């Protein structure tokens, strides 16, 4: 999870914004409890999204209270008091960050000190939820193996990360897990991986590092890749959005799901467009949208 999952802020209801921030604060406090204080700094809003999703599907309500915290000493913040699910998610976050840092060190982008910072937190997470650490480490090593082999098939390269999210959802949702939740988290994992690949495209090409999108289209820069090979990527992303839409339409939610809907239906496509067409035209998708319509007019329906 690399901070790609975010809401479409102008369209986010005030109530959902409050909930979103409260969940984030709750997670932060929860991590303090479960993995120690230093691990708190590793938190990202991605996990707050997962928290909203998992609480909702499990039917566990959160209690929001005004509390002070170390980062906001003077003004009290709305905090969703951490429960077991929050604590488990905190462990997921710590373990994810720890393995990500291990990965970076292996790739030569050393963050040795940073990893040391989170090592203790990771050990506590491992003790609390050994299954989570096992899922992450197993899938991450598979991901590394695929990348070392230089996998050129986009769908295949995303598989381990997608599987990791799927397995994490099964673990976290327990009896509430089902075909649609599994598929949703699979798609989310796939999207996160692809969003990261899209974001790092130019950087990876420059460094000669592995990037599946580059491997598949072989264009020297992202702009050219989008121009020449955009159709395929647009298909992959549009298909992912459609699959996620289908999933959330079929999942049994216990509460109203405006927050997660905003993120999945608007936030994720918006973020993708920004990464794809550049920041300036991503906002409303207008210029980018028109460009895309020009470059691949008949992609999709009735292309026979």
């Amino acid at each position, binding site marked *: 999870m690399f901070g790609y999952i975010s809401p479409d802020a102008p369209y986010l209801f005030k109530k959902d914004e409050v909930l979103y921030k409260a969940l984030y604060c709750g997670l932060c406090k929860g991590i303090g409890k479960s993995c120690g204080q230093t691990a708190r700094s590793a938190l990202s809003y991605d996990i707050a999204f997962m928290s909203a999703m998992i609480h909702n599907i499990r039917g566990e309500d959160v209690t929001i209270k005004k509390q002070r915290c170390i980062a906001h000493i003077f003004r009290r913040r709305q905090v969703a008091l951490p429960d077991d699910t929050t604590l488990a998610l905190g462990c997921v976050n710590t373990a994810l960050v720890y393995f990500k840092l291990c990965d970076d060190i292996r790739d030569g982008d050393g963050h040795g000190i940073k990893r040391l910072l989170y090592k203790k937190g990771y050990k506590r997470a491992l003790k609390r939820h050994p299954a989570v650490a096992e899922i992450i480490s197993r899938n991450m090593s598979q991901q590394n193996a695929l990348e070392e082999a230089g996998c050129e098939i986009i769908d295949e390269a995303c598989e381990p990360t997608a599987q990791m999210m799927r397995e994490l959802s099964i673990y976290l949702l327990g009896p509430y897990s089902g075909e649609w939740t599994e598929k949703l988290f699979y798609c989310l994992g796939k999207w996160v991986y692809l969003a990261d690949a899209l974001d790092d495209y130019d950087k990876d090409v420059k460094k000669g590092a592995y990037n599946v999108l580059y491997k598949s289209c072989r264009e020297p820069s992202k702009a050219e890749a989008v121009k020449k090979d955009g159709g395929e990527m647009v298909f992959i992303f549009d298909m992912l959005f459609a699959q996620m839409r289908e999933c959330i339409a079929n999942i049994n939610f216990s509460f109203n799901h405006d927050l997660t809907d905003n993120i999945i239906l608007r936030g994720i496509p918006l973020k993708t467009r920004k990464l794809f067409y550049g920041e300036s035209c991503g906002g409303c998708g*207008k210029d980018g949208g028109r460009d895309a319509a020009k470059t691949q007019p008949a992609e999709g329906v009735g292309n026979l």
Partner: protein
Amino acid sequence: MKNENLEILGLSAGATREEITEAYQVLKAKYLEERFMDGEVGNNAARMLTRIETAYSELTKEMSEDVSSGGGDAYARVEELIKAGNLQDAQRELDNFNERGGRWHYFQSVVFYRKNWTNESKKQLEIAMQLEPDNEQYKDAYRKLNDRINFDAQSGAAGASGTQTQNGQPRNGSTYQGQTMNGNTSDNQMGGNGCAQCLDCCYTYLCVSCLCDGCCR
């Protein structure tokens, strides 16, 4: 499979492709040597050579037809495995095929689709359609696959209804409309792209607010 042809190669019914090829090669080598011998032996060898040639070509033709026309049990097995959700075994079965016609690519596409590998699934269907341009089943599958992109634009979570529909159709209505890579054309906001800048403003405000947070209260 014609038993006669098998007998010529010295095999019985139920012989595998490998056995047939092996027997054919052994016999061919034998008769090729014998055909220049004197008398009846040479004549017989020349006759046998033609016979094994025709027998072998007929047998291989029959076998490949068996596989690609769907008469083969192998495809039925793959189909069963897919239906049972056992994608790993289905993939293993598919990997064992030597002849890879349109039907093979179709089944590969189905396996990929079930694995959520939509892009690969699409590619396999395209190959299948290329190999068998007249096959309606593949065209239909391709159309359906592409139509999935529009999910909820017509029926699903989007729209005002938001109520339960029948036949396993979506249960949850949603306040938001789904978006695609092309942006949402029906959602024309006044000021257009301005909202991107407006957002920047919001973030700046947020940062300033955070900075002031400590002292303002």
